[in-house]
Structures are given as structure tokens and as C-alpha cells.
């Protein structure tokens, strides 16, 4: 899958080069007068529309230079909304992708574990998502590209009631649109 993605990137660059070359040649050389073939459009279509993408084929999974999906989930300490320093490099990559793709936007979902009241956790989840949003904006992402939505404790990643599940549930998730 990842190899395929990398190959397709290479192929796209080659195709782009060919396309430019192709344009100049078709203008001067005579074209064979052929009867239109029914299947013809299928063959030519991919060459014209594709550009180098920061996203996998589903168009929502961000990928790095080597085509690897970039982590979109960031975890937090109990009752805290402070970014983990080890996440900053990954967030920087997200920021670059959003800067390069200013037509794209991201929803930052904030989540909590089940401890504490639901409404307070809604606020805490927003604070977590806002910490991510603030980092992205400071890295040059337009505020219009970011929406913050807190789910509080309502959408656990792991519905179990133990410290392992709680750690999984204290998170912010980037959903690209």
C-alpha cells in the first residue's frame, strides 16, 4: 500500500513531464484520422487531472513524503490539555500540509476519558482541541481551515472502564475535509 503510494507519486511526476512534452508535440505533428473508439476516454483521463498530493487515495488520509500515513491522533495526560512535546514534529507536518493545501480544512476533535462530569469534559475536550488548533495556526495555518469540535467523553475510542482505556480516550483527532 505504502509502496504503491510512493510509486504513484513518481508516476505522477513522470506523467506531468510527459504531458508538457506531449502538448508541444501534438501541436505540430499531423494526427491520424481515426474512427472514434468507444473506450477512448478511459485511457486518457488519468494523465490530465492528477497533481502531487499530500493525501492518500481516499483523499482524507494525510501522507508524508514517503507516502506513509501521518498520525492524526494525539494523546493527553489526565485532566490536562497540554501538547506532548513528542507530538510537535507530527503536528508541524500537518501544519505544512494545510499550508500547502489552503483549500483543505481540518476538524480537530477533542475527547476525554469518562472521569469527571460530562459538561466539564466537554469544555476540557474543547481545550485539548484548541491546543492543537493554536499550534497549527501559529505554524501558519489559516484559522478558516480549522474547526474545533469537542465530544467530551461521549465518543470513547475504547469503551472499557480502566486506566488503559482512559489513556486511549484522552485524545484529539484531526479529521481532514
Amino acid at each position, binding site marked *: 500500500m505504502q509502496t504503491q503510494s510512493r510509486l504513484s507519486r513518481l508516476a505522477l511526476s513522470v506523467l506531468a513531464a510527459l504531458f508538457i512534452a506531449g502538448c508541444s508535440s501534438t501541436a505540430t505533428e499531423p494526427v491520424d484520422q481515426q474512427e472514434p473508439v468507444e473506450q477512448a476516454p478511459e485511457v486518457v483521463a488519468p494523465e490530465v487531472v492528477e497533481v502531487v498530493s499530500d493525501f492518500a487515495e481516499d483523499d482524507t488520509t494525510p501522507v508524508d513524503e514517503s507516502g506513509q500515513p501521518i498520525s492524526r491522533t494525539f494523546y493527553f495526560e489526565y485532566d490536562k490539555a497540554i501538547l506532548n512535546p513528542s507530538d510537535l514534529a507530527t503536528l508541524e507536518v500537518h501544519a505544512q500540509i494545510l499550508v500547502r493545501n489552503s483549500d483543505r480544512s481540518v*476538524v480537530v476533535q477533542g475527547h476525554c476519558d*469518562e*472521569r*469527571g*462530569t*460530562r*459538561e*466539564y469534559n*466537554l*469544555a*476540557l475536550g*474543547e*481545550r485539548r482541541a*484548541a491546543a492543537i488548533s493554536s499550534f497549527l495556526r501559529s505554524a501558519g495555518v489559516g484559522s478558516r481551515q480549522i*474547526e*474545533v*469540535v*469537542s*465530544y*467530551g467523553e*461521549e*465518543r*470513547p*475510542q*475504547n*469503551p*472499557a*472502564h480502566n486506566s488503559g482505556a482512559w489513556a486511549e480516550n484522552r485524545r484529539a483527532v484531526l479529521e481532514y475535509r
Partner: protein
Amino acid sequence: MSYSTDFVSASSAFLRPSAQLFAQLSGLKRSLINYLGLVCLLLSFAPSIQAASSLDTIIIDRGVDEPIRISIVPFAAPESLSDEANLANIVAFDLARSGQFDPLASENMLSYPSTRQAVFFRDWRILKSAYLVIGRAQPLPERDKVFVEFELYDVAAERLLESRDFTIDRSQWRDVGHKIADLVYAKITGVQGAFSTKILYVLAKDAGSRDARFQLEVADADGARARTLYSSSEPILSASWSPDGKRVAYVSFETGRPSIILQDIDGPYRERLTNFKGINSSPVFSPDGKSLAMVLSRGGDPEIFVMNIASRKLRRITRHHGIDTEPSWSPDGKSIVFTSDRGGRPQIYQVELATNFLERLTFIGDYNARARLLPDGKHLVFVHRRNGVFHIAWQDLEKDSLLVLTATDLDESPSLAPNGAMLMYATQDQGRGILAVVSIDGRVKYRLPSSAGDVREPAWSPFLPDVLSAN
């Protein structure tokens, strides 16, 4: 201990179940007692009307030390009504749940009078029954109507304390049962009964999975007759009753973000009241029903607002960069209590609306949240963390004394009965979300699990308009 065994058999006897059902009940009782170490267990059954998703009710604590002994004689009814007419059962179960009453098992009664002439007070004195309730049900010529009457006697004084009659539809057995329980409770304790009230709660099925389903449910206060008001694949929370009991405000994520919904309990009206950027949550009706306190974070951080429902005008109440959330009104409507972490940790504050005078109310512990004032305005219930465990606590605002009411963990969302005698809250039992009730002195407890999923976010209704026509 005699209380518990007596009452389990009482409920069964009122039902007059088949031998098989009785065996099932006894087996269930034993297994639960063995497993949970319950002091007392009682199951409510009303076969004709109980919906599949209704809550079960299990009494787990025997309540006050000397509950009042009362005898509720099975109501006399012709054969044609016998399936539905387990009125005595409904009344006895209501009174037992209050923890203040110990209804006598019908099989231990010496006679089953249904009229004053048939009552021999000496029999009831021998049984140490302080009070006696008798009654009758009779079908009326008018289709589907039933005439119900009851009398409450003081056994020692041999005196009639209360009598009332009703003409009901056949669908109103539970309504009239709860009504009789209210009247008996009020006459004997002097406190208005809250058995005819209802509860709202959220039923979550497959929570935590992609197929999660969230339902806003309304049911009788004992968990019976549940029905769905709104169902969604997105979360629902923070339901709140309008003071007239006709509408509910709640938070729905149906648009992909939280928004506040206003909806009829019994009618077609449903409207999305707010859908601002950020948090739209924690709606609570003012005591006069004209305004909703709510939390909006459209300015960047959550703040308390008050919306005039008619004009939709918003007034901002708090102004702080910290978290301000979970508003609720003082009974006089003049102030709002809320949760804020402006002091570093979540604590309860109170703000006077006329003056913006702000006061911190809680100082014990480092996590106090989701407060509700009692009807007297002088006591507070809230979620209190102690040693990392979340309980429901009660605080006397004048004496600053704090009492932890619950012993379980992850207890949240306390909601007071309108008479202030009990509160319902959400907790967990063996990994499942259940509702539970505790008396305001912490001595009486019962729980309401659901076999349909996790139940949470209870909201106890105000006193509701009488649905019965007294004759």
C-alpha cells in the same frame, strides 16, 4: 432484615403471579443477593404496560431505621379488571422506594377488606400496622373507563385520614397508583409526594462503537413506561425539563457539533435553538420558564449565557478565560450556580444576576462540579471527587458541612426530585451505566438499570399537572 424479606414476598403476592414466575423472581432475587450482597431487592412488574426498554428498579438499602409499617390491601376488583388492577402493588412499591415505609406483605394480612365495614382495626394492630389503605376498582358502563376509590386509615385512632375517587382510562392504572401513593405519603409525612413525576434520561446502545445509538427517553419516576423522544447516531446529553413539564431542552450532536434543542414532551415541536461555533450545551430552564441558562464557547472559551426564549436574546453572565460551565438556577431565579476552574481546579460558584456579585461555594476537595440547589436554596448537591473517586455530595451552605451521599465510583449528573427528598444520579455497575437514587440524607438507595444499554444523564421532572380527573 425482616423488612427486606417481607417486602420481596409482598411484591410477589400483590402480583399473584404464576408459580413459575414466582420461582423466577425468587431465583433472580437469590442470585443478585449472592452476587451483589444486596440487603433487599424488589422488582417492579406491570405486565400490561411495561415497555421492553423500561428500567428495572431494585432496592438496595433498607432505608430509615424504623420505617412506618403500612398495609395496602389488594384492591377489590371484578375478574374483568384483575390483570390490570395491581394498584396496591404500585402504591406499595412507591412507598417502599421512599425508604420511609415498610409495606406489609399481603400474604401476611389476616383479612382483605375493601370497605370500611369489613375493616377490623384490631387485626391491623396485631400486625403492628400503623396505617391501612383499602380500595376498590369498578368498570364503568362508559367504554374503557374505570372507577377507582381508596381510603387511608390511622389504625391506632381508627380514623379515616384520606379518601379519594377517580374515573380513569384503562391505560391509567399506573397514574392512579402513583397518585394514591402521593396522597398517602403527603398525608403521613407532611411532604408532597413525587411518585407521579417522570424522568428523562439518555439510553446509549453500543456506546464506544461505530454503531452507537443514543436515545432520549422519558419514563415514570420508577422507570416504567419508557418511551423515546429522540434517537440519533450522535451523542445526546444534558436534558432539562421546563418548569411546566411540557418541554425538554437538551444537547444533540446531530449536526456534527453540539447544539441546543428545544422539544415538546408530548407534541410535535422540535427546534434547534443554538448552533454556534464551539460548545452549545448545558441548557437549564429558569424557574419561570422564560429563559434558558446555557454554555456557549463561540468567543473562544466556555462562558455562561442566559437566553430569553421568546426573543432569543442572549445575555453573557460570566467573563473569564477559564472553563465556566454547568449552570443551574437558584429556586428564586435570581442567581446561577456554575462550575468554574478559574481558581485552578473545578469548583462551584454562584453569581447574582442583578449585581454580578460572584461567590465561591465549595472549598473541600479539588473537584466539585455540576451543582444543583435544593428547593430551599440553602443546600447544594454536586459531583465531588475524593481520593480519585467521584461521588455525589451534599453541602449545607450556611454551615459549610459536606456529606458524601454515594459510595460508588463515577457517580455523576445528580438531579433532584421536585420535593427535594431524593436525588437521581448516574453511576456504573459492573461496567454498565445505570441510574440510581439516593435520599437526601444518604440512607435510602435504589438503582434503575436497563437491559437495553447504558443509561445516564437523568433529569427528574418538576411536579406535573394532574392527568387524572378527580370526581
